Every structure is written in structure tokens, then in C-alpha cells.
């Protein structure tokens, strides 16, 4: 009898359009309820018609809504990651797992200024889905 110990993996994207130059943007979102837990978080910036490349545009800090939690850390946001794994932060290294249906608050500090802003940023969540593979 073949056991299915593997679950589907899924991506989820949170878009933050038109970040204003030299500002702090406050973002609140919930990790998808269909996720058992979040394994990776990645960030990206883009602007129509312009290649932003590896220029550091700002920093994002994440915080879960629990009594014991502190801000997860500050991460640079650029126009292109070095690689998916290198750009991603692994929530499994936290003391507590980042579960599905969990409220996350994030603050994005824009530092590139009016030369680059406004631009869009995306927060990518990669997690284990509740559905098992066949």
C-alpha cells in the first residue's frame, strides 16, 4: 500500500501597487487559510517599462500577531532576486511556525526616492497546501 506523505506546494502573491517615494507603507494580510504552514517568503519590485535589476529599493519588516513575536527581520527588496532560494526567507527558522490563516503586518520603508518610485512590490508566500498529492 502506497502512503502519501507528500502535500501539494503552492504559491500565493500579495501585491502592493504604487509605493510612494521616501515613505513607509503599512501592509496587513493573512497567510492563505488553505496553507498548513508557510515555508518561504520572497519579495520583488517591478515597474512597467523599466528594469529595476538588483538595485535596493527599500526594506520590509514582517511581524506576526502573537504576544511573543518580534519583527521577523528587515529584508531588502530589489528588482530581481539572485535566485529564488537566496531571495527567500525561510520561516521554518523561526521559533514558532508560520501557519496558514495567520495575520501578518508588514512595513515597507522606501529608500530609493523619486528616481525610482512609484513602483509595485509583491510579497510571495510559498507553503504546504492542505491537499495531499495523489
Amino acid at each position, binding site marked *: 500500500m502506497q502512503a502519501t506523505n507528500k502535500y501539494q506546494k503552492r504559491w500565493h502573491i500579495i501585491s502592493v501597487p504604487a509605493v510612494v517615494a521616501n515613505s513607509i507603507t503599512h501592509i496587513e494580510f493573512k497567510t492563505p487559510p488553505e496553507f498548513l504552514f508557510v515555508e518561504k517568503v520572497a519579495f*520583488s519590485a517591478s515597474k512597467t517599462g523599466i528594469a529595476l535589476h538588483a538595485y535596493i529599493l527599500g526594506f520590509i519588516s514582517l511581524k506576526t500577531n502573537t504576544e511573543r513575536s518580534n519583527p521577523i527581520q528587515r529584508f531588502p527588496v530589489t528588482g530581481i532576486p539572485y*535566485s529564488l532560494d537566496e531571495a527567500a526567507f525561510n520561516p521554518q527558522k523561526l521559533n514558532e511556525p508560520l501557519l496558514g490563516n495567520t495575520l501578518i503586518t508588514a512595513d515597507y520603508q522606501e529608500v530609493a526616492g523619486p528616481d525610482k518610485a512609484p513602483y509595485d512590490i509583491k510579497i510571495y508566500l510559498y507553503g504546504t497546501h492542505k491537499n495531499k498529492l495523489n
Partner: protein
Amino acid sequence: MPTIDRKKKIQVIPIVIPAIGNEVEINASVDKQFNKVTGIACSALGAAAGADEAVLQNSVFNRFEIDSDEVFPPGYEAKFIGVHRLKGVPPDEAFYSNKDKVGQIIPFNGNNSTVTIKYKDGGFVAAGAPNYPYTVNVYLRLEQVSDEKENPLEKFKHFLAQSFEKWSKENASNK
């Protein structure tokens, strides 16, 4: 006599982008001789000199499915699986794949599965040079994976997973 591994193959799915901002949908069938898709990558070619990497910058996949199984959600930026991001890395390591906790690849179905891709151009224009039309090549790494039931190690892993699952349920109900 040298041996040749015929159990792996790279399948290329070309998507031609005719003009700025275009969204193109394409369907392709995975080579039926290979039962698993273990990696995905993409690159752009044919744009102005030096712009092949840049045209992927703001472009997204609005649909990427294998047999209706979602690979990437709408809005997933093509640059995340672009091969240009891994300069100097051997080609076989430049592919994106889903992995489980121990780093083992979780493949998608191969074997004549239908790949549906909807690509939207991000509108990058290099100064003084035309970028359009250009072609996005989506690369699928295909493998013919033997039946796990025949592999003693895989059989043992499944036995352990099954036993742990059973023990977890019994302990959960005893609390």
C-alpha cells in the same frame, strides 16, 4: 562502451510575443515518453542586444498549469524562473522545482499532460532599439522515474510515513 542516460530530456515550449504589452496563451503536451516534470525555467531571446534579461523583468505568467494543476498563480513574475539570474550555474541546476522538507523534488505529471501557459509582456523597451517581437522559451526538465514500489528505499520510506501517520492519529485521539 559509454552509457547514455535516456531518462532525462529538456522540452522547449516557445512563446512568441509580437508587440508590447501582449498577453499570449499557449497549450503544449508533455513528451509522452517521460512521466514526470521535475524542473521549469525560462529565458527570452530575440529582443534588442542586452535586453533579453530585461524583457522578463516585469513580465508575468497569468496562468501556468499542468493538467489543470496550478504551478504558478496569476501574476507570478517570469524573472523568478529566468535562467539569467543564475549566471555561472550548471544548466541542470538552473531549474525551478517544488521540494519537500528534505529537499526531494515533488514533480508534476508528465506523460502527455497538457501544459497551459498565459504570458503577459511587461512592456520593457530598450532605448533606441526594438524589442519586439521576441520569444520566451519555457524549458521543462522531463524525467522517466521508475515505479516507487519497485525501489526498496522508497518502500521503506513509505512504510515509515504510513506508520507515523497512524501513530499521530492514535495519539491525537487519546488526548
